[in-house]
């Protein structure tokens, strides 16, 4: 048989037959040892001049466990040509096996093939190599019963970089992943480093295509030209590739392997888990990027994944986030670094990236951060907050629900809107009609509320709680139905005892009181009632004190009242003028002690403003007062 063997091989082997060589990178010969004691035939691969396999890789392959890889026995170089001596696998390829047994193979046989190829790929990848041309023709049958398969021709990508120009023509793209043809989403994502790619995912796409072919009985691209296959890979949704498989478990496996995005593609471990249990809940089919043309996005944009879908524009992502507030919050907290990189490097929008990064510095409330983030991405999306479209009307309705129906969720949302100053943020949006007005009016009512609070504090009333301002927000609308609800509740809060309290009365009648005062009346009711009840007891105490102690005790009482001006109105002035009787000074020291005791007894108890607030009766906005949710507010 004709054929040229390098001298170092020629000494020990003779050529039996030349094998059809693919791609023109090397000549392949079946050789036989000249030593009659060794009857085992081998294959000699003699490379063309200038093509040199990487020695380190060959060494690793030679020393590797031959398990499911074609065994490399020796290698060398002669007269400028490299050669490799390897195992001769006589029983043909998996292609021939399929042609003979198929076209459709039984599940049991496919499972055997899958198991062995997964082991083979794992072994290959462990050596730091990828196959990159996995197809039935490159899988050889070492034994038929039991079926034993080995990988061959695994040198293309890693062993010989120099062979690309030869092998590119030999490699069929029917088993090649979308990234192989270039110009697709995933490839770009890989190149830009947006998605960390395991470098072995290429072969798992090929494995997926082989499985589809064996299970469905036909290759999905059968009969198509290479150009058409390339076009389909670049532009078509790949999910329909698995349509020919009837068994749902097998189809799921193939869908996992045939993911357009390399990072989403199932790999060795996923396959091993599927083999152990095809319904292993840990196995998830990651949502895939759409082909670039279908997505209507500029090509080469890496996708951002959210809630099982891939997005290639900030607008789309923003809109999706606004529909899933809780997930959006999680996304904002956990994938912050990723989103910034995507905006700047993936979408090429450094200004948007900078604006989004500033949210973290400028806004403290987490809710407000999420709102701001979403609407930075999608400024024209209708304002949404916590899964609800918000408008001036919906805010008013939240207030009404919180007050009339004691709706805790509504009160909670209102509080969050207030704390995050969402109306102000919404006012800056293109779709934020009505919000700037609300925001202004709210500001002025808040100012009034604060002034009123200051005045009341000076008179001994408890500190107003800032969360009340949430109600003011809802009441800021012209003709807000909340105002009527507030009036009703304010009337309920005007009990006889409360009304004895001067500063409480000063807030005005619920019919005429300002919105700020209407919010305060029910809130301050308990405190006012205490003052009022204390005041009822006061006239008697003043009388006794005046009669008994004269001037000195009278001054003590006056001092006590000065410290509690809220009740002073019920101490008729005439009793304090009883000091004219004081000149008598009977048993002065003893009486002073007695008087001080009485004065303390008659003094209203000050448990402190906090105590009084917490003992509020069930008020409609008690929820607002007590809700102090962690995680809704932040600061550094």
């Amino acid at each position, binding site marked *: 048989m004709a054929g040229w063997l390098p001298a170092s091989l020629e000494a020990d082997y003779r050529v039996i037959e030349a094998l059809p060589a693919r791609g023109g990178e090397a000549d392949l010969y079946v050789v036989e040892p000249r030593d009659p004691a060794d009857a085992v035939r081998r294959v000699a691969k003699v490379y063309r001049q200038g093509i040199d396999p990487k020695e380190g890789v060959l060494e690793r392959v030679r020393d590797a466990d031959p398990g499911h890889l074609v065994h490399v026995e020796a290698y060398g170089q002669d007269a400028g040509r490299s050669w490799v001596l390897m195992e001769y696998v006589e029983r043909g390829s998996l292609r021939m096996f399929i042609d003979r047994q198929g076209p459709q193979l039984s599940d049991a046989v496919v499972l055997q093939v899958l198991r062995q190829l997964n082991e083979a790929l794992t072994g290959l990848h462990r050596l730091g190599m990828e196959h990159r041309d996995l197809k039935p023709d490159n899988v050889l049958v070492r034994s038929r019963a039991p079926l034993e398969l080995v990988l061959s021709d695994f040198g293309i990508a890693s062993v010989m970089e120099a062979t690309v120009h030869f092998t590119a023509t030999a490699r069929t793209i029917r088993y090649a992943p979308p990234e192989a043809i270039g110009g697709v989403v995933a490839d770009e994502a890989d190149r830009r480093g947006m998605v960390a790619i395991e470098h072995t995912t290429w072969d798992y796409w090929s494995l997926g295509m082989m499985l589809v072919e064996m299970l469905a009985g036909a290759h999905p691209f059968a009969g198509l030209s290479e150009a058409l296959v390339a076009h389909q890979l670049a532009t078509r949704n790949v999910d329909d590739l698995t349509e020919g498989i009837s068994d749902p478990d097998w189809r799921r496996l193939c869908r996992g392997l045939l993911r357009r995005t390399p990072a989403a593609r199932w790999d060795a*471990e996923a396959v091993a888990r599927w083999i152990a249990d095809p319904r292993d809940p840990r196995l998830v089919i990651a949502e895939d990027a759409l082909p670039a043309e279908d997505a209507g996005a500029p090509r080469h944009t890496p996708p951002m994944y959210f809630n099982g879908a891939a997005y290639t524009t900030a607008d789309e992502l923003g809109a999706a986030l606004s529909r899933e507030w809780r997930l959006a919050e999680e996304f904002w907290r956990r994938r912050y670094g990723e989103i910034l990189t995507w905006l700047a490097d993936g979408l090429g929008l450094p200004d948007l990236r900078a604006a989004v990064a500033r949210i973290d510095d400028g806004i*403290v409330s987490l809710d407000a951060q999420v709102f701001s983030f979403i609407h930075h991405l999608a400024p024209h999306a209708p304002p949404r907050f916590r899964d609800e479209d918000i408008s001036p009307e919906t805010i008013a309705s939240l207030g009404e629900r919180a007050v009339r129906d004691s709706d805790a969720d509504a009160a909670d949302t209102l509080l969050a809107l207030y704390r995050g100053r969402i109306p102000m943020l919404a006012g800056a949006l293109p779709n934020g009609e009505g919000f700037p007005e609300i925001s202004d009016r709210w500001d002025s009512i808040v100012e009034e509320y604060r002034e009123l609070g200051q005045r009341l504090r000076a008179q001994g009333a408890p500190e107003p709680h800032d969360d009340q301002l949430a109600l003011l927000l809802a009441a800021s609308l012209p003709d807000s139905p909340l105002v009527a609800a507030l009036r009703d509740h304010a009337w309920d809060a005007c009990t006889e005892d409360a009304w004895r309290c001067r500063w409480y009365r000063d807030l005005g009648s619920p019919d005429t009181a300002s919105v700020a005062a209407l919010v305060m009346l029910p809130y301050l009711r308990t405190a006012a009632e205490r003052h009022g009840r204390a005041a009822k007891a006061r006239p008697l105490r003043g009388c006794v004190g005046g009669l008994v102690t004269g001037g000195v005790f009278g001054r003590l009482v006056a001092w006590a009242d000065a410290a509690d001006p809220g009740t002073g109105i019920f101490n008729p002035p005439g009793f304090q003028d009883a000091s004219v009787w004081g000149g008598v000074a009977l048993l002065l020291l003893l009486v002073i002690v007695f008087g001080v005791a009485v004065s303390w007894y008659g003094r209203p108890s000050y448990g402190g403003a906090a105590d009084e607030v917490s003992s509020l009766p069930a008020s409609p906005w008690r929820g607002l007062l007590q809700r102090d949710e962690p995680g809704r507010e932040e600061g*550094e």
Partner: protein
Amino acid sequence: MARADTFKRDVAPVRRAGLVLEVTAVTHRGRVREHNEDTIGVGRWTCGDTMAAPRRSVHDFADARLVLVADGMGGHAAGRQASRRAALTMQRLTLDDGERPEVGDALRTVNRELFATAAAEPALRGMGTTIAGILALADRIVWFNVGDSRVYSVRQEFLRQLSVDDVPAWAGPGSGRITQALGGADAFQEIRPHVGSQSARAGRRYLLCTDGLTDAVPIETMERALSHNDRAFARELLDSALAAGARDNVSIVLASVRTGAVAG
């Protein structure tokens, strides 16, 4: 009692001269592993041995300060070597006088050197490590990671993850699978480090940790301890990981940007 207006910028820029980095660091072999393959680094100090208690130190901002965690892999000796070598090389590249490379380039250099070392020493073949850390420059904090070790920005009531996990999309974090590392393969593989930066402001607080913490302790549990001071927070996180079985080595580093004098 009065809740101040919460919508204010409470992270005020502070004069550079007054900024210090206060670091609280601890590493532990956990409850199952016999050895610690993690390495933590603070400035030029590194530690890969189980520590009895978190170590606290304060650093001037005048010089660049590097704080990192690295989770070695590849068997006891190799893993330990990988994380330690990565930490030392990173320190040399970013802290030594002379021309300092960008953080991404420094990480690529660390990766190359690890592969070179592994090629030269058969016992270290395949050694690899994750890395996550921050570099405090005069006016910026640069964060970085390769692999699944993490950098969080610690906010008052939640943790914000700055780093990007290099894990397969199908598996998610906690699967123990990573898609890239420094070293960690038989043949050289280039890496794509994740790098970002924030302005350096007093009040910023960062948590760096290996997956020995994040796999063992749910994020919600971690967030419940946020109100503690750094030392108590680090202690609490470590205790939670140990209580959860700590199947892996655990490393926790808290770095807080503050105003004040360097205490030592």
